[in-house]
């Protein structure tokens, strides 16, 4: 029975299937890329705040947090621009996937330890004021969605309207 399904799949013309994949890839690239650029741009002008947001996770000491806090916004901007342009899509998507994984683990760890913090994903960050409650569920859901989109690009890096296909065929 499973063969019937397999046969049907194989009968979809290669060109049409590729075209659908490349279109999904374009959408994935733009979503992940824009989120990264926005997140990076909102933080890059306030490096100390970014470092404080990292400190709030109580995972790394200052010596490590400051490097992460200063470097991360720039990394996000560069990856985001590469993805929007579709340049070195697979490499950018691999690094982006690792980033999302790190964020998912970091937020989960704050969640299970009961920390009351803002993830600091789009600037701000740090401990929440009294009366505010964390949004860990939605932060995790968002990052998992972005991870899945990035993994799609790792698996199928050929996308529509990309610098990769324009330059390297």
């Amino acid at each position, binding site marked *: 029975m499973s*063969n019937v399904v*397999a*046969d049907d799949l*194989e009968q979809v013309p*290669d060109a049409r299937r590729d075209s659908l994949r490349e279109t999904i890839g374009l959408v994935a690239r733009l979503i992940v890329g824009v989120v990264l650029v926005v997140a990076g741009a909102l933080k*890059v002008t*306030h*490096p*100390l*705040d*970014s*470092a*404080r*947001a990292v*400190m*709030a996770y*109580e995972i790394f000491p*200052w010596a490590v947090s*400051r*490097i992460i*806090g*200063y*470097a991360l*916004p*720039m*990394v996000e901007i*560069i990856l985001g621009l*590469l993805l929007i342009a579709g*340049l*070195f899509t697979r*490499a950018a998507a691999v690094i982006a996937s690792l980033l999302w994984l790190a964020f998912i683990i970091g937020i989960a760890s704050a969640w299970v330890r009961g920390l009351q*913090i803002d993830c600091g994903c789009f*600037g*701000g960050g*740090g*401990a*929440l*004021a*009294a009366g505010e409650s964390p949004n860990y569920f939605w932060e995790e859901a968002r990052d998992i969605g972005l991870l899945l989109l990035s993994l799609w690009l790792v698996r199928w890096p050929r996308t529509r309207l990309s610098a990769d296909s324009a*330059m*390297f*065929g």
Partner: protein
Amino acid sequence: MGANAKKRREAAATSGSMSRQDKINAAAPKGGGGPNKILLATIAAIVAIAAVVGAVIMGSQGEKTDSAGGSALPAGATKMGGGLVSNTSATLVDKAPTLDIYEDFQCPACHQAEQLLGAKIDELAKAGKIKLTYHVMNFLDTNLKNDASTRAAKASFCAADAGKFQPVHDAIFTNQPANEGDGWTDEQLKKFVTDAGVDAAAYDSCVKSDKHAQYLDAVQTQTTKDGVTSTPTFKLNGEQMKLAGMTPDTFAKAIEDATK
């Protein structure tokens, strides 16, 4: 049926690989002088690494007190980035604990803590039962996109130079706007300071000189390094106090327990 499917799969695979080969063939001639992927990737990687390293260096530079203003310490502060002792005139009792308070003038939770405990803290500080040290921060300016925390902090430092930090600190919190982010006008801040008995001309020249700008920056940086990620943070002899459920009485008891 199985054999049929297999045949079709083989056909698909062959045509797939052929079309890829076709593409390679098609690309090769016209791409004679085309971009070299490895070279481009290397350049992109170098540019990216340079940008990230640059960002880290810029960030580290930002930790230094690069503010355009002056580098004077307000009275009560003994070092750049350190706290400001508000009750230097009180005679401390034997083994009086140090109470470090980390606050941003625009922080509503700080206002609540001040309303609840401020009178008790003033009383203990005047009696010399605590060494009361304030770390005035201004990080909320970034979140709220204004400069009210910075202006209020500098007003309190100018008041400190006239020995009036505590009353001005209290007045700023008492008059914290109901809507977080509305801040205070320069006139309001000046009124808090002159009402506390500071000479208006001295205050004006202090504000104009911006002499405490680097001290304020240094406090913000140092508190971040020390892992103070929220305000208010109260530390009693270096140990963070749990403020939830605190009353003036339990607070006084905690101070008493720390005095032994």
